[in-house]
């Protein structure tokens, strides 16, 4: 079942920072900018952020393997291009589309 509602919220120092959209998701979406070194509780385990994460960006809810499907809204939004550690930024550097490459101002990615 597809859902667009927020079912979980991760709070750091009393501030809501990440949201879980669907039970099956293996990524969380940032709802307020988080900084390197901040500690995020993911399924009972504390993980330190290794980069700054901006609003709208994703982090891994669990450890992910190369070629594993990235799940958001309960559906696949692409595949991991490398192993991804729990709590790491998930973006164009470590995942790609299963349909059509994305591009940035500098280059085409995910080919």
């Amino acid at each position: 079942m597809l859902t667009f509602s927020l079912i979980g919220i991760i709070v750091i120092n009393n501030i809501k920072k990440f949201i879980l959209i669907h039970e099956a998701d293996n990524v969380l979406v940032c709802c307020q900018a988080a900084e390197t070194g901040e500690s995020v509780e993911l399924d009972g385990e504390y993980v330190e952020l290794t980069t700054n994460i901006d609003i709208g960006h994703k982090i891994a809810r669990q450890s992910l393997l190369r070629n594993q499907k990235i799940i958001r809204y309960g559906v696949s939004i692409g595949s991991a291009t490398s192993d991804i550690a729990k709590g790491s930024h998930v973006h164009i550097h470590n995942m790609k589309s299963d349909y059509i490459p994305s591009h940035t101002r500098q280059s085409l990615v995910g080919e």
Partner: protein
Amino acid sequence: MKGFLRADGRKGIRNSVVVVYLVECAHHVAKTIVNKIDHEDVQLIGFPGCYPNDYSLQMMEKLCTHPNVGGVVIVSLGCEGFNREKLTQTIVNSKRPVETLVIQKCGGTKSTIELGIEKTSIILAEIATTQRTKLNISDLVIGTICGGSDGTSGISANPAVGACFDMLINDDATCIFEETGELIGCEHIMADRAESKELGEALITCVEKAEKYYTKMGYGSFAPGNAEGGLTTQEEKSMGAYAKSGASDINGIILPGERPHKNGLFLMDVVPDGEPVFGFPNISDNAEIVEMIASGALMVLFTTGRGSVVGSAISPVIKICANPETYKKLSEDMDVNAGAIIDGHVTVNEMGKVIYDQIIGVASGNMTKSEALGHKEFILTYKTFDGSESPKALGPSCLR
């Protein structure tokens, strides 16, 4: 709510005169007429190309006879390929006042501008007496588009528009969502909502056409700003965009300019048929907005994460900001702060109702932010639908 009653029985929420240039060579003259009159109900639209194109002619016919348009002034250079006689006849048949000025016959720039101001003013006075009649929710045709999407779009503004669409459809309005290229990856989920099996198959075929077309073009419908805002792949962007369509049954597929055959929810197939001939399906957000207006949209809901500022000629654009940080920076351009969902202040359904109420207000005459700021963007370019892959080829006309 009251609407402007047109001869075909449709009702508009605005009563504008459009000044239309039929080739770039007539753009300056048409623009100067509009600028000198400087009236909010006089708007500039036009087509830049000199070569004829069926799609552009049909789009212009639909736009010039849109319920929000009361009268038309056509500005032609004289030698361009646009079939101005057919366009004029279509407008005459719709019982709207129309004047055609041909620069090469009017004595050049200055005299055409003077004549254009005179004719436009006469039409403006004439349509001021247009009968107004009760406007029902079932008369509303509402389009939606997202532009400058980011990672927040799919959890705030887009599902809120989806909730609003469900309310509108429940009240017997007509809603249009679009960009099959931005539904790549959701085609099977979407097909489950089709009112018939045949339509479900046609929805999948439409999206496959889009995927094939965009792959040939070398780019998906995915801008660098999407990635900066946290979106990583076409299918992630698609899922967010798809949320705008809500949860109602999908009743059909329409082509740009084609009107839904009944009230309900319709997908617009914007991707040309066959091999790419004229380039990207829509070169920017306004090209999509124009297509929904040509299909009868009285108003367009525009969701944005990164922060678009555009409006449109002919139909008002309500801008719904997905990202609370963007809202802080660009609040003067935003009608609705759907970022409040992310802040946890309101639910998606509550925000859907806020948008619904905003629609009623704008239909009743309230100006949107983009209208008040003078945004009247318009773009129409070349396109080809030869019927080989579009809904026409996919099944009986009841699909449309």
